[in-house]
């Protein structure tokens, strides 16, 4: 098997893991990352569900993979053109440099939903409304958890499904990871502020993964986190800056109002700007929700409509971190097989 060249676009978990594996197989891999740091969104996450292990341990694991296999990392890479010519791929950067490869893995990841679109929740208007990503950054900073007025919050509300399962903002799908993140963050808040009261406003609690139910039970049993089944309709600001929340307590069958010192919006996952840009350049198919469309939902999950271009990670759909690891290793394998001229198309039954 001769060594070929592979370009990987996106330096998050998917990009790092797939490039490390391909390079370990002996191929020449170039990894492009648009910021000056590898790690993607994982850089903003302190602890990971369901075990509460540190995110930076995973980053170190990924970095070692990239370094040990000697992946050629290009940071601050602004891709202005990417196209296929014959069987070769050409990528051009804003600084004028050009690169060639025999295959491409697109790992452009996700963006977090812009909570300003949910006007009625008051994000960007009321000071004490923040997103789950901002809360996690507060955890990372190591500073004491305080609200916008510098006071320790006594009551905190967590709003599920912000920007997901919502026709009004155009995202009808479930972002998968927000429910368990709310449970995880509730536990973390209680560990920092033991006498705080936490209220999670949910439609369904999607505890699909192994150990998620245990985490949920732990939140209720050990930390007395309150779960209220009812979706937030609107939030307003009280005179003292606390947020007045209006939900229906569906299990009691009545509308309910309550004040919280801090309101955390569990923002969903949307296709990233990079996904849209690179997809347009390479002529890739998009699914109905704006994520990439793979060739077959069951059998060809990392394969795109352009031979030689493969997908890895959240650019295809919301995913958990362990899924992304599995995904990127699958993408690496599919790429390697493609480069070794394995024809997967022979396995497809034409109907």
């Amino acid at each position: 098997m001769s060594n070929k060249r592979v370009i990987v676009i996106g330096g998050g978990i998917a990009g790092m893991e797939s490039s490390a594996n391909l390079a370990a197989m002996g191929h020449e891999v170039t990894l492009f990352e648009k910021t000056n740091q590898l790690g993607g969104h994982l850089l903003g996450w302190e602890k990971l569900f369901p075990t509460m292990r540190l995110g930076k341990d995973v980053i170190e694991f990924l970095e070692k993979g990239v370094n040990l296999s000697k992946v050629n990392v290009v940071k601050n890479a602004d891709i202005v053109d990417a196209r296929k010519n014959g069987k070769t791929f050409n990528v051009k950067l804003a600084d004028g440099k050009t690169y060639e490869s025999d295959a491409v893995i697109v790992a452009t990841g996700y963006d977090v939903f812009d909570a300003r679109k949910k006007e009625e929740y008051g994000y960007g208007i009321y000071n004490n409304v923040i997103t789950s990503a901002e809360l996690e950054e507060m955890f990372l900073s190591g500073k004491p958890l305080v609200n916008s007025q510098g006071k320790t919050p006594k009551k905190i509300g967590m709003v599920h499904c912000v920007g997901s399962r919502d026709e009004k903002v155009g995202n009808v799908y479930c972002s998968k990871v927000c429910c368990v993140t709310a449970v995880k963050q509730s536990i973390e808040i209680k560990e920092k502020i033991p006498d705080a009261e936490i209220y999670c406003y949910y439609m369904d609690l999607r505890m699909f993964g192994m150990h998620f139910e245990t985490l949920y039970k732990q939140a209720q049993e050990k930390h007395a986190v309150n779960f209220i089944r009812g979706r937030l309709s609107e939030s307003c600001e009280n005179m003292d800056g606390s947020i007045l929340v209006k939900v229906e307590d569906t299990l009691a069958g009545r509308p309910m109002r309550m004040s919280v010192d801090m309101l955390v919006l569990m923002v969903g996952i949307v296709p990233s700007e990079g996904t849209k840009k690179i997809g347009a350049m390479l002529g890739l198919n998009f699914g109905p929700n704006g994520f990439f469309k793979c060739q077959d939902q069951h059998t060809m999950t990392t394969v795109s409509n352009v031979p030689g271009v493969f997908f890895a990670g959240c650019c295809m759909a919301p995913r958990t971190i362990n899924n992304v690891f599995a995904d990127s290793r699958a993408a690496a394998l599919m790429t390697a097989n493609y480069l070794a001229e394995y024809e997967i198309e022979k396995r497809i039954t034409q109907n």
Partner: protein
Amino acid sequence: MINFGYTLSKDRQIDFDKADRRIALFVREHEPSFNICFACGTCTATCSAGNFTEMNLRKIMTMVKRGYVADVRKEIEQCMLCGKCSLACPRGVNTRNVIRKINQALELYAL
């Protein structure tokens, strides 16, 4: 006072900031498994009393947690303490003891 022919309607929105949570806190303290109920309704589905009376244990537990105890005493009196609910609960909530504790709290706070 003038009789206009109508009066102000009662506000049925639960104002949680003003809720009386003494019963909930009492039960929480004396029967910790009260916390892990996730309101699936299995207890209510199997309840003997629920076949012929308004008794709805899932709703009672939710109302107690929200501080809304106005009708809880009458409803909870229908319970026969047969134990079917404890048998069925998938989370392991000791529902019979929760009921006893709610009753004790109602007595204690004269509600």
